[in-house]
């Protein structure tokens, strides 16, 4: 059934297919300089959306995110004693790269995986479908992670009969630095943290999130981006992780580890240490930012 609530254009339209860019012409942008800590510079601004309770804009490289928080606002038809909390993510329709994420469980079936792989090798890119009505897998994963990570930090019992809703809008995503889903999660989570503080919703603690990668030579790279840290060598092992903390009580509230091969405890420890380092750095940055706005 065609979507009757959106203008979807002629049904017979076909998506554009772009040929792979010849290598000599594909200039990748030199990555943004990193600070001493190994984290890319990022720009934040709170309160930019006026029709919500709290918001934050975050820009890192070419990724731009707007998070808006609505609530505590009325909810219908339940006798709840505390607020419900939900997270909605929306990736801008045009960010095709996201469908090429390698995260293995993103595709449903083997067949599709094959298809994706094929497309990736050829690097033919096509336009996305307009007017999708369902959350993409990327959006679902992002929402679930952030919802899980922030749930323990919000004093929900202070807001009975209501709901707190977080809307994450990924406006642009970095097509140069091959940002992975994990990187996106990291920055979305940090942006959400500031938006929640901006909303005046009471929090047990702020959540800060870090990302790290363990390359096959066992070095830990914090906030990995595409070009300076390079791709993994063929056949090598790489572990990527993202972890969220409430640093005052030193609690891990969110963790996601990704690797093509098996991982052992030692590797996990290493990579999580990396995440922790970054999360602490981010936290002190956020603290500084918030104090400066008062």
């Amino acid at each position, binding site marked *: 059934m065609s979507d009757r609530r959106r*203008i979807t*254009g002629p049904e017979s339209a076909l998506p554009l297919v772009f*040929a792979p*860019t010849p290598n000599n012409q*594909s200039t990748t942008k030199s990555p943004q300089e990193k600070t001493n800590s190994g984290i890319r510079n990022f720009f934040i601004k709170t309160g930019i959306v006026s029709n919500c309770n709290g918001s934050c804009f975050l820009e890192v490289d070419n990724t731009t995110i707007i998070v808006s928080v609505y609530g505590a606002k009325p909810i219908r038809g339940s006798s709840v004693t505390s607020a419900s909390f939900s997270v909605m993510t929306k990736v801008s329709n*045009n960010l095709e790269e996201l469908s090429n994420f390698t995260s293995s469980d993103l595709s449903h079936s083997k067949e599709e995986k094959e298809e994706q792989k*094929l497309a990736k090798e050829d690097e033919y*890119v096509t*336009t996305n479908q307009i007017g999708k009505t369902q959350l993409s897998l990327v959006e679902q994963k992002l929402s679930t992670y952030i919802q899980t990570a922030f749930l323990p930090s919000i004093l929900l019992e202070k807001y009975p009969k209501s709901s707190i809703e977080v809307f994450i809008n990924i406006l642009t995503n970095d097509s140069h630095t091959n940002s992975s889903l994990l990187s996106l999660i990291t920055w979305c989570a940090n942006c959400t943290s500031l938006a929640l503080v901006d909303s005046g919703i009471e929090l047990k603690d702020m959540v800060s999130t870090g990302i790290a990668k363990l390359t096959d030579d066992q070095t830990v790279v914090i906030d990995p981006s595409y070009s300076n840290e390079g791709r993994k060598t063929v056949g090598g092992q790489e572990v990527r992780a993202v972890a969220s903390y409430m640093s005052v009580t030193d609690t891990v509230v969110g963790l996601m580890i990704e690797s093509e091969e098996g991982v052992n405890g030692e590797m996990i420890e290493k990579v999580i240490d990396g995440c922790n380092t970054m999360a602490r750095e981010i936290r002190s940055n956020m603290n500084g930012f918030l104090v400066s706005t008062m």
Partner: protein
Amino acid sequence: MSEEFQLKPVSFSPEVLARIAPELSLQRHLSVGVRPCLRSFQEFKSVQINPQLDSINRYTSNQGISSKSTVLGSSNIKCGNTIIFCTITGGFIETLLPNDEADENVKEYEKIYENSEKQENNQQDDSLSNFRTVYPIIEIERGRTGAPTDEEMIISQTLHDTLLNSKILPKESLEIDLGLKTVDKDNNEIIIYPNESKDIDSSLFQFPRKYSFVLYASIQVFSRSGPILDAAWLALMIALKSTKLPCVYFDEKNSNLLNDISSLSSKKSVKTGVVNAKSGSQIICDPTKSHDLKLNNSDLYTTTIGLIELDKDFSVEIEDVENNEDFKALSVDKHTRNEGEPILLCDIEGDAEENAIGSRVVVIPDINTEDDDNLVSVTIIGGGSKVTKQSIQNSIGLAKLRSKNLQQQS
């Protein structure tokens, strides 16, 4: 008032009053010459047109070609507090050429096609069917999920229809002159285009099928603070101006053109958004070459003016207010108005104005033409304050003024 009773004011914060009694709030403000948003009556919101989101446009990225992007044009504007992002993407649509003799069905179709072609020829050049539009989807972030709101649907359709009615996107602008990817004498892959290679036999470019682009627009709105049509249209206009259409070629290697091209749009590709490039697509966008989208006129802007009559019952004694220090700092409208003429308010903003203003005039002037016929669209919504001839005239004047300002800005 004949009765003897004392009226003690009950005070509310402005924001609360605007919500509980919008009409009262607006009338009180207007009676002393200011608007709830503190702009003067005919002051437009400041518009800030940010450089397009270079990094996401495929063909205009200043960091070289953005290899994975499918975005053909984009814009980012700020109108007052409201932030709008607009991106343009594209698709192909197939049209048949009359000389296709391959298929019986096609022949059948061809007859119809020819007939309609004839009809079209009889028509004037500016028949609406000679123009195209874009398919916009607007999303206004208001903290809700689910199906689009009525407003989102209505604005989408308004943009769609207005763009078509204003005849700025001719059919030809979207037609594709197919190039050819072939192998030269040295067995190197080359792509040749009809317009850039005069020495090549033009018969090479006789393809049995003809293609056109279709354009989609995705418009995201943050911090909505009033009717959004004007800002959404502006964002769409600027995005269209920045739009570059890819050069498109036919890949000889996958040459069986009569193979059903519809395999491209198989359900699977819809679901994953990824097309198996090897199996079906012979029509490929050049990774680097593009040309500007040709528009007949890129300086059309919609302007919405709200009309409201002053209600004397609500007025505030002006002397009370004038002594107030804060008030002195504001720019106050003391236009002398004719009795019975409504006040014109530009860029309706906030609960009080949006709720209480019933009558509106929406104008699209064409400021580039020397012709007398310099209006493209005038929509009058009555029912609130009486829409007088004078107020329509003034609205048109204001719309022209704003259009000129925007033209200079963009």
